[in-house]
Structure formats: C-alpha cells, structure tokens
C-alpha cells in the first residue's frame, strides 16, 4: 500500500477515509487471524470511549473540589489517589496531577512532543489539542491561543504552561464562578467545561447553569 502524501486532515472525508478504512481493517484482520487480538476486545474499548469515558468525570472531580476543602487539598496533593477514592472510574492510572487556577495564575496544559492527555478523566483529546497549531503555540503564545478560544485574561495574570513531556498527566482545577454559593455538586459540574480543565477555557458563568 503506497502512501499518498498529498492527503491532508482536511480531505479526511474524501480519499483518506476510504484508504484508512481499508488499511485499518486489513491490519485488524491480520492481527485477529494470527490470534493476537479478539475483535470483541476492540468493540468493548470503543464502546467505553463512546459512552462512559469523558470530561463529565473531570467535571465531577472539579465540582467536588469546589465544595469539599478536604477533597481539594487531597486532590492537589495526589490527584491519582484522590480521584481513585471518589470511585468515578474503575482505576485511575498513576501520575495524575491537578494544578489550581487562582486570581493571579492561569494554568494551561499541552503536549508539544505528541498529544499526552489525561484520558481517564477527560476522555479522548479533541482534534485541536493534537494539532500542530496548538502544540507549537501553547508554549510561546498562550495568550494568542486563548484568543483563538475567545478568552482574554488580564495582562498581569501569570500564565503557566505545563508541557506534558513524560508520563505525568495534568488537569486544571479552574476557579469556581461567582454567584454559585450553596449550589450542589451536580449543578456546579454543569458549569465545568472540558476546555476549562485543559486551560484553554473558563467555566461557564452561574447564569449558564442547566
């Protein structure tokens, strides 16, 4: 099978789609026939990512941290242990680290070398997180990246970018929106967007609650 080098992500709905359908099917068939994988194992994983694993888990973690000071302290000390204790996912891999936004500091997560991302609590990363524009610019122009997301921070707000160059995985603990005093964890979680846990967005305002 020859590589067609002129294919791009943007033409993915044309030639790449059919080429890749055939190519991945061929690889799966060979590896299944040789006895390395059972296609049912692939079905189960796909189903998990499509239905169970996603940013709602991270949102529940953030909402808990906003309402339970002891949990927040535990989360910032050892996020793997703290999230595991909540029982939201079957098992949290080691090396999860939560970093806290404050009125003076905004955190942003990137992986410039590949696309490392905390899959277990945020699900699979969006295409933009894996793209060259984000991976190249997050470390030297985070304000420009934020502008692409329609987010503007005060000039004197310290910006801290975490490049995920090892097996440590990061999530941002955003600031709790004002006007949410006394809210339940469930209602608070509805304000927590995926992007606010990557640092390319902020939580929704209280007025946007569902």
């Amino acid at each position, binding site marked *: 099978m020859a590589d067609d080098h002129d294919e791009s992500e943007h033409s993915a709905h044309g030639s790449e789609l059919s080429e890749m359908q055939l190519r991945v099917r061929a690889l799966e068939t060979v590896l299944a026939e040789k006895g390395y994988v059972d296609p049912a*194992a692939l*079905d189960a994983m796909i189903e998990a990512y499509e239905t169970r694993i996603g940013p709602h888990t991270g949102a529940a973690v953030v909402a808990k941290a906003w309402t339970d000071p002891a949990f927040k302290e535990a989360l910032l000390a050892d996020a793997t242990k703290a999230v595991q204790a909540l029982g939201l996912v079957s098992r949290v891999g080691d090396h999860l680290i939560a970093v806290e936004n404050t009125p003076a500091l905004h955190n942003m997560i990137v992986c*410039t*070398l590949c696309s490392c991302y905390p899959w277990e609590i945020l699900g699979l990363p969006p295409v933009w997180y894996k793209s060259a524009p984000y991976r190249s610019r997050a470390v030297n122009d985070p304000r420009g990246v934020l502008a692409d997301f329609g987010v503007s921070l005060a000039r004197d707000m310290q910006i801290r970018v975490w490049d995920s160059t*090892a097996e440590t995985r990061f999530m941002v603990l955003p600031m709790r929106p004002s006007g949410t005093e006394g809210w339940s964890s469930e209602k608070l979680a509805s304000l927590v967007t995926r992007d606010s846990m990557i640092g390319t967005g902020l939580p929704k305002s209280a007025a946007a609650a569902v």
Partner: protein
Amino acid sequence: MDGIHDMGGMHGFGKVEPEQDEPVFHAPWEGRCLALNRAMAAIGVWTIDESRASIESLPPDVYLSSSYYRKWALGLEKRVINHGLASAGEIAAGHALRHGPPSTRKVTAADTPRTLTRGSYYRPPQGPALFKPGDRVRTKNIHPETHTRLPRYARDRVGVIEANRGCHVFPDTAAHGAGENPQWLYTVLFDGTELWGDKSDPALKVSIEAFEPYLDPA
C-alpha cells in the same frame, strides 16, 4: 530525534480551530485504530516509548499531512512488521499468510479494564536524587538521533526544579529496547524570557517534565 514532532515554539501553523460538538471519533476506522493500538500495546511486545518513536520517525511530510489516527495506524504497521508479528505482504493482502510467533498472548474483551487503564511508570530508584526543589539547573544541549523527551525549545536553558515526580522508566532507552533504566523525573520551571528572549510575555512561565540525565547543576 530532532524531528517534525518536536513542535514547541514553531511558527506558521496558524490558528487553533476548535470544532463545535466534536464527535469522539470522526469515522469508525478511528475507533478501530485506537482500540487496536491499545490492545496490541497490552500484549507487551513494545513499550509506549517505542510506539511514540515509531510515529516520530515517520517521514516529515507524512507526519504533517496525516491525521492523528492515521499516524497511529502507520506507526502500528511499522511496529508489527519490525517485531515480526506480521509481514508487509500480509498487511497488504489483508489476511494472515503464516502463523505468528506462538508464545504471544491474545487480548480479549475480558482484558478491557486493563487496556483502558494506564500502567504505572514508577520504578525503584537506582540511586539518590541529585536535585531537590528550588535547585537551579541547566538542561543539556543534546541532539540524539534516537527518541528523547527533552524538547528542542528547552535545551541549554536555565530553570528551577519545582517538584520531584519520583523515579520513572527512562524513555530515551526504553524506546529502542535498551531497557527501562529508571531515572528521577522532575518538573523544571522556566521563565518565558529564558526560552523565548526579551520579547517574551513577561507573565509567562513554562514547565517541562525532565528526566535527571537531561539536567546539569546551574
């Protein structure tokens, strides 16, 4: 390797374009490709570092013009062939033409909880940590042709150790079968101006996760 994958600080890729209501997969083959990669990883023939290296070493034009999951598929084909699990001819034919190595295990649906959870990369230390939080360090000016996790933009730069993250598998050796060679891992924090010069945003700080062999005292 100083490859196209090492994108931090490069110019010219344009704006970040978020997609509204993005689906988990954009086509069924993406899900098959992801799951096939994870299932084959669970067999344990190669390390996660070798997987990354196989994608980084795709020709630069292929790397840039391929979607994320296409790169995963191409990398997996390479590893399957390099480890003798299947031949290029078999992949082209879409069928097994001979039996694979008999000792390998089969990944089934019963393995799903394991294949969905990341493994631990902690390993027992081989010696005491050389650095502690607050120490100033200079990253090494290294350009290995093999896999490394020290990005170009952060080489030969002075930063401060912020945290010791424990002793981990060392990707630079694990990527090419040279062993886990566990090393201390640190979060190292740099001022924006140290990385990008006087014109950098003065309110910017960037950290990398750096293995001890990448660092000298400063």
